[in-house]
């Protein structure tokens, strides 16, 4: 009992909330994607110098690449945030129910004795 309401509860918080949120952050690379949100997407060349035409072409390439990048990253960040929210809500519910678990039998017996749901 001492473990369940002491280190055990902390363990439950760690496993059900903290680690699952960390997993979402790492799996969807949310921090890294936010940091590089406006970076170009999967560039293969980054021409520098040259004629005005080439420069304009490179600039436009860059702008398009950044937009594609923002969209791709935005989608992954959104998915990650949703996954994180689901993880957080279910984790909080799990942690909230944690203290009740040892009393599952007394509670069920009590409910039966009281005839709840008959």
């Amino acid at each position, binding site marked *: 009992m001492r*473990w*369940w309401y002491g*280190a*055990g509860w902390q*363990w*439950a918080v760690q*496993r059900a909330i903290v680690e699952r949120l960390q997993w979402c*952050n*790492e*799996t*969807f*690379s*949310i921090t*890294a*994607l936010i940091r*590089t949100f406006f*970076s*170009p*997407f*999967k*560039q*293969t*060349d*980054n021409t520098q110098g040259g004629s005005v035409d080439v420069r304009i072409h490179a600039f436009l390439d860059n702008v398009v690449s950044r937009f594609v*990048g923002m969209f*791709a*990253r935005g989608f*992954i*960040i959104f998915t990650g945030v949703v996954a994180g929210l689901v993880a957080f809500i279910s984790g909080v519910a799990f942690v909230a129910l944690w203290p*009740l*678990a*040892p*009393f*599952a*039998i007394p*509670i*069920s*017996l009590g*409910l*039966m004795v009281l005839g*709840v*749901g*008959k």
Partner: protein
Amino acid sequence: MNTPVPVCNLDSPRAAKARFGVPFDSRPIRLFLWFVMMTSLVGWFWSVFLQHQMVGHLLFGLSGTLAVLLFWYYGELKELAPSQTIDETHDLSSVLSRRLLARLKKDMTPVDLAKVVADQQGAYFYGARFGIGKEFLQELSSKDKDATIAVWQEALVVAHKTNSDRIDSAVLVAALILTIPDHDNYLAQLELDSSDIIAGVGWRHHMRMMRDRHREKRHYGGIGRDLSFGWAPVLNHVGFNITNSIQAGGILRRPVDSRLSTIDQIVHLLAQPGRRNATLVGESGVGKTTLVYTLAQKLLQEPKTVPSELRYQQVIELDAGHLIANAKGRGQLEELLLHIFNEAVHAKNVIIFLDEAQLFLREGTGSIDLSSILLPVLEGGALKLIVALDSQEWLRLAQTNPGLAQSLNRVVVNPLDFEETVQVIEDETLLIEGKHQIVLMNQAIKEAYKLAERYIHEQAFPGRALKLLDAAAGFPEQKHFVTARSVQEAAEKSFDVKVQTASSVEEKDKLLNLENLIHERMINQTRAVKLVSDALRRSRTGVANDKKPIGTFLFLGPTGVGKTELSKALADVYFGGQDRMVRIDLNEFSHPDDTNRLLATGATDPYSLCAQIAKQPFSVVLLDEIEKAHPNVLNLLLQLLDEGMLRDAQNKPISFRDSIIIATSNAGAEQIRAHIEKGQQLEQFEEALVDELINANIFRPEFINRFDEIILFRPLTKLELMQVVDLLMAGINKGLAGRKITVKLTDDAKALLVDKGYDPRLGARPLRRVVQRSVENVVAQRLLAGGITPGQTLQLDAPELQTTLDDRS
């Protein structure tokens, strides 16, 4: 550390928890409980939905109770962390591993403890890696329950020394071994000592850690990790992505202490502004490639310990041969490389690794000189580059292209010492074992280090030991165990030497009767034969200094008394044939430059001293007429006599440590004869004669001192020449054995031959010529005339031989 009197409170809460957790260790039980819990949970929802709420209350109670049990097991009981540290505990129940604690009973003896650990991982580990099986432990452990305290005390000491946070089965097995009375002797029989047993705990823990980490997630950084980096399709096509191979489950390595600072240095160089390159310079086998793999692993798995610009960087190795194969001509090759470098720079997450970079810096077959392309790229500082070069190549580069050498940041990689080499091999164990389907024993690792140190000179540690261990995998003993003996066998086969101490009955007999076997081939010179035989016995029993040749002897005496014959006999009897004798006539080395001829490599002169010994180290080296060699040649030989090593023309070390070195000289022959004629024994004038030779400047004292023994050969008497006749006749009969003809001499015939062949100055040589002129001629004539038929014995007498000799004169 405190030295508490250890007690083990089996009534403690931790001990009770340990016992309670035992049923849950069973995977089927846990799966069953999960199944019941989940089914109850689903049933609870279902019953609520269907308004069968009484059933639902029951299912709720059941699922809740099972959840408590399962989460308690995963959260606490499974690992059951120690409740105290090793150094502060006085109650062992607070630091014992759960699996041990659960099985302990009161008043256990060391034998009972040995039985408890017998089926645990630690015991299996010591059985497989050290050859210390559970039977060994149970047989030798004490049956006295009072001795158990000593075992626990030792376990605490072992745990402290190995930085273990608990006493697990490996620690307990080590403690049981180390508390066996007279354990040092038992361990010595297994070629082990106490430190090996303690180190075994660290090895076991490391293997467990590697196994656990191998099971961990394999994708680092997440699915969006590389989204902000560029594409490098050509680079990915022609290069080998080390980072990906690690991510795919490559073997995990722990950097040894001396490499930690090197890795930090590389990280610093790659992260700094300016020339972002690191050039690893070290001998072949020192672990440069492994270092790059360790770095790639660190960038991937420990991102928080490296600067942000290096996190999750991909290390991609370029192979010169592959690049050449992907380009048609030189122009295309340069274009390809520029394209690759450009991709790497713009991708922003690539570190290029050029292993064996000399292949990129020198024109030749399978190599290309790209230094003109590399230099501006390095100066630009945009490309992150790691280059591996061996020390010789670095010196060559510094000489031929100082500009490029200056733009490379040199990081020296030194060879590892014994402890670190063993640690690296332990890391490689799973890889080697998986590749060859074998089990490596600790003794094999130690032996590999020892023998590699002795026989592999072209590489550095740890590579040289790993190379030998790889070869030893081909010689496993029973049940695929690679033992010290397997390593010895591999060394013997690879280097054509004898490294195993004399073990077979046949070889022991041969060594014990070496004098008799040699005397079957030569007469008298008893002292010389004994000294040489002693040297061989010392070497083959492992008593001799293995940093020197097996033996070094200077044979002094007149010609024809058996100096060369003894060398031949030795090569024949013990080294496996006369082709095992490398004979160098030093009268042909009388010029100062002749040292070069001794040191020539096999490519330029396959019959030079170095070339022959490189090919066949287990030999008798006969240096004939040493007094006629030039002083430069003698100076060179000083090192050979002293350390058993020479460096050939290419500076490659050549080991003479498996050879017997015999130098012969006729110097002092007249003095020996004079002393013998006065009736003196060799021992009586030996020292005086050597002094005389030194005073006469024939030999320098430092040269004479380098020999293990200086052996005087005495002139042969007529009586001894009679026995030489028998030996010569045995040789003739051996040649005729194919025709089934035997030749015999009467005593008169023998006496005649000795009389005609005796010359005190020339020893047995004239006798050999007389036998040739008389006996062999008679036999040849009879054979041609058809006077002898197979199966016949031809007896020759004195008059017949006399006639033949007279005819020739």
